[in-house]
């Protein structure tokens, strides 16, 4: 059910010219940052720690804890990850276009709290409008005096740079993003030793936070960390944007209180997803981005709670929920997701580079009618060679987690819909075609 939790990061969306400084200031913009400047950086960090703010980029690590892990050497950098590129995830997209000043304010608060020497907002290159609005907003913010030297007379100075990505999904992986920011190929780095908080941008300690994560900061500073933590349940605190897509009547972004709402609410509530299209039945859904293992209708009453979803063998990830109705070919759906990861593998390490292409070819063969029964076992074993055991944290067969993302959809589809694969194989092709 829907709660009466306030909209924290989407409150201004939909307002006329919400992306302008004037509109932002009218709605209390930059008050959180002004307030933060009156506090010590430690106190700001403390509020965020109290807020239980989990990272909204996918891994779901506590933001306050991440900040506290920033290594001592200086300079330290802050990088905001706006390279949102996963299919069916489109929340940062909306924030960058609709409320760029909120992103900037959140970035400033974070930079102040962690003592960054310089901050970068890395925006996916394809977000033409987002880049335009972010750049315009940053110029306004400089002119307004919120960014630059001796901000609001506080003595605090920080420079911000909006950096466009060059078109690779992998640069959403934080260490690949840092490589890209340094002007290199977007190759993820081996961790350890390249944990950004220890050895990040230009080998200096670096905090990498997601756009939505920092967009929460102005509210947290103004309402206190405890106020944020009061929303939601336990570690799943506050509200969160869920990108709902697929076969629902109202695909959209919804900011809702975490853990108090279930997948059933999200998909069927008339104020949210509004039910399945054409009155069809739900067949399966992806609970947190296309790299997450799938759920069936039996999991509909699972709350939108990070830990609960993790315990059930999947993840809340980037908060994107993809709904598939009973007209969906699950082989095709899994194949489509596999194609994406195959195409977006950076090619650095062998299992992901070669394995992604291989399972793509096998899935294609099955879907188009050339499947063999032995392919099912082969698929599972190749997936196991890419990422043994599908556990978290994944085994280090690959440098980053793109590799372990490849098997999710295939193993889910095989586990839940093996019969469908067998029909494809027996009938020499897709029964839904």
């Amino acid at each position, binding site marked *: 059910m829907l709660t009466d939790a306030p909209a924290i990061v989407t409150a201004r969306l939909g307002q006329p010219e919400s992306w302008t400084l004037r509109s932002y200031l009218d709605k209390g913009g930059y008050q959180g940052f002004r307030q933060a400047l009156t506090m010590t950086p430690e106190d700001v960090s403390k509020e965020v720690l109290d807020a239980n703010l989990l990272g909204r980029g996918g891994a779901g690590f506590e933001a306050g804890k991440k900040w506290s892990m920033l290594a001592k050497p200086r300079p330290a950098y802050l990088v905001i990850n706006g390279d949102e590129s996963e299919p069916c995830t489109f929340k940062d997209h909306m924030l960058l276009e609709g409320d760029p000043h909120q992103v900037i304010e959140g970035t400033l608060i974070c930079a102040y709290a962690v003592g960054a020497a310089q901050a970068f907002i890395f925006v996916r290159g394809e977000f033409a409008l987002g880049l335009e609005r972010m750049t315009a907003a940053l110029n306004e913010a400089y002119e307004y005096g919120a960014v630059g030297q001796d901000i609001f007379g506080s003595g605090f100075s920080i420079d911000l740079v909006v950096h466009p990505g060059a078109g690779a999904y992998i640069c959403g992986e934080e260490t690949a993003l840092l490589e890209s920011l340094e002007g290199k190929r977007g190759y993820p780095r*081996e961790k350890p030793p390249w944990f950004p908080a220890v050895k990040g941008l230009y080998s200096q300690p670096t905090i990498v936070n997601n756009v939505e994560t920092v967009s929460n900061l102005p509210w947290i500073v103004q309402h206190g960390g405890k106020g944020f933590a009061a929303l939601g349940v336990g570690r799943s605190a506050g509200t969160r944007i869920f990108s709902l897509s697929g076969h629902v009547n109202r695909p959209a972004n919804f900011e809702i209180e975490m853990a108090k709402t279930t997948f059933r609410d999200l998909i069927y509530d008339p104020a949210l997803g509004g039910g399945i299209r054409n009155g069809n039945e739900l067949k399966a859904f992806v609970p947190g981005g296309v790299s997450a293992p799938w759920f069936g209708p039996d999991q509909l009453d699972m709350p939108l709670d990070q830990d609960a979803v993790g315990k059930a063998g999947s993840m809340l990830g980037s908060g994107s929920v993809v709904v598939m109705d009973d007209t969906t070919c699950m082989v095709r759906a899994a194949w489509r997701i596999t194609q994406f990861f195959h195409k977006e593998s950076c090619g650095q390490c062998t299992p992901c580079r070669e394995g992604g292409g291989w399972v793509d070819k096998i899935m294609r063969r099955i879907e188009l009618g050339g499947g063999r029964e032995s392919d099912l076992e082969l698929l599972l074993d190749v997936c196991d060679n890419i990422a043994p055991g599908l556990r978290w944290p994944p085994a*280090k067969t*690959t440098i980053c987690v793109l590799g372990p993302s490849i098997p999710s959809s295939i193993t889910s589809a095989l586990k839940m819909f093996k019969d469908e694969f067998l029909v494809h194989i027996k009938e020499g092709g897709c029964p839904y075609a």
Partner: protein
Amino acid sequence: MPDIVIDGKKVEAKDGEMIIAAAERAGIYIPRFCWHPRMKPVGMCRMCLVEVKGPRGFALQPSCYVPVAPDQEIVTTSDTVKKAQDGVLEFLLINHPLDCPVCDRGGECPLQDQTFGFGPGESRFVEEKRHWAKPIPINPLIALDRERCIQCARCTRFQEEVAGDPMIDFVGRGDHTEVNIFADKPLASNFSANIVQLCPVGALTATPYRFKARPWDLDVVESTCTACAVGCRIAVQSSSNRLVRHLGVDSDPVNHGWLCDKGRFYYEAVDSPARLTNPLVRKGDEFVEVSWAEGLRAAADGLRAAGASVGVLGGARLPNEDAYAWSKFARTVLGTDNVDCQMGDGLPAEAVLGLPRATIDEACSAPATLLLGPDLKEELPVLFLRLRTAALDGDTKLIELTPRPTAMSEHAVVSLVYRPGEAATVARALVEKSDQDSRLARAAEALRGESETGEGVVIVLGRPSVAESADGIVQAAAVLARAFPGAKFLTALRRGNVHGALDMGMAPGILPGRVSLDEGGAWFTDGWGAVPAQRGLDTLGMLQAADQNHLQALVLLGADPINDFPDRALARRALAAVNFTLAVDCFRNDSSRHADVILPVAAFAERSGTTTNLEGRVSRLSQKVTAPGTARPDWMIAAELALLLGGDLGFDTLDSIAAEIERLAPSHAGLTPRLTTGDGAVVPVAARGKTSSNGQTGEQIEVNATFAQGETLMPENDPDQGETPLDRPPSASDPAEGGRPPLLRFTPPPSSRTPPPVDAYSLRLVSGRRLYDHGVLVSHSPALAQMVSEPVLRANPYDLDQVGIKPGQRARVKSPRGSLLLAVHPDPAMPRGTACLDVNLPGEGPAELIDATAPVTEIRLESVGGAG
């Protein structure tokens, strides 16, 4: 030193090393493709996954990227590891063409070997493989097959990290990642073919070697490259008595496994159809092939007629033993001290032999290393790699004193550009602790960083340009040596065994073993029976004497003064003037065209011996193939001529020459044959042995106890007295060993001629060498000959503008000596008032412009209009 446990075995690891390296030393081989001990890890291939115990129990980790830690537990053979290895190998093979039967790498291929050792044995892949057009040339020496590539990044890392020529990289992503060059930009690197050797599959093949042999048919010996004076260790491979390949051998003190492309491919010259196979005697205007008996007799007759009025030019191509034989032959049989292995393009022997010597390792671990010499990337390429790595990854600060920018300039903390002829002036300013110029101050600070006396500092000393005289460089060296008595010198002379030839006395006034004629005369009179009383002439002196008819005969010992001496007109006149010329060489050349007798000699890999690199390291040359026709080693020719001229050199085998060198040449005392194997030994052995025991060089050399007491003496110098010996290098004969003369000490020559005042209408010429030039090795190696570029005069655009020369135009270049029409390239990096034109390129060059007796070469440019 942390102890770690690998497969239940306790292993002592080195701090900071990766698990894979520690395991390898303990005899546990972890399979790998991308990891290479001389490059940074990338963790790309995932072949080296092992299980490492962590807080959550054992987990897979890439052993190339996880450093050792105390009490770390590692398992390399578990089922989990085995499955991971199987998986990775299967992945690597799914898109690999498996065309092993026609692959040059087949039989020595890491992918084959590791599939054999660790792989699943069969593939479950039934899909279409990835295809690329193949092979594609990435430069004239290398072909790329992208289908075979397993994306290990060894080639890309080498070119970026080690060579500094990042011209090959990954393109695309995922399983469509290809390694490739940038569009229309060939891999123009002097080190490109290292990537062929590094490639763990047959993706990169050397064009000259493609389809020439199967690896299992190759014979191999280890030897030392003589393409330049670095002395890289190489594996020389032959098939059916023909050389087919050189591979770099990882010698820790020298080349780290790297080779330059010239060193890798010059074996083609050995096999050239242009090689001399039989003695030639001039009959009228023609050369006629004759028997050795007749050839030697003609040579002996010519030399006998000349008596002591003879000069011996060359010898830097010869192995040590052959150089010693000729040195002894000249002194005892011909009775002359007119011997010089340098062609007026190096440095005086007294400076090379008499300054305290440094090793490459010392230059690469020094707090500061000062470069005063040629563009190392062109003349001593692998020394460039070592120093570049030292500057980038180590703590060594490079300071450059140069007449023009070099490839090293970007890595130097300070690059001090001097006007040709004025190196000593800048050196004086550098040591005078002036803080007027901040760059000078920064350079001085780097040199004095650890001690006022420059303790540990190394000065790489060579000839920056043959268009300025060596005097100015020697003066600069003297200034530096006096100001930094703690500094050592690494001499950067280029020719293959020039340092060995100098050690063997192939220079006027110098006898074998780094002793002067004055101080060693008595010792060698004892040992040899006689030595000339008077110091002889150097190459310039000999050519001038010949030109003035004061010299009757010349012996060209692998020398081509017409092409190698900086002043071509003088060389031509000299050769035309002498009555008799004997050429001893592998090839005919422009100079031997003037000869009366030409005797063919065995080339590299056709004879054994030892060679000495620029640090004084003596290492082995090994024979692999037989010489063509009746060509024979140089020492035999000296021995036979001696007999015909009524003398006797007293040896009949290489071993007997080596034994005599050890007995008579003071610097080589204690150099037993065993010491010259492998990495070889730096002479004097005793002094180096002492350094080694101090742990400074890390060399493992067996030390003759008798010489181990030798001490490095630092006599106090009076800085005001230029004639005081600056330093006494460690001597094998100090203090014991009665009778051996002392090793040479460098005495700065009296102040040299000062260069003329700057003439605002002239440019001063800088002439260095390119890796690919008209030298013998390159000219006779088809693969290398195509790499030679046309001569271009480079000057600052401002200077060109002044005389109205527009980009793309040719210009008339004039000196008092001659005039040339040349392509001109405006180069903003060139200092004003200086022009650069490299020697020995096709067509006419600096040798037409240079007056070898002048301190500098001044040229004037004239626009000739029109497009080039």
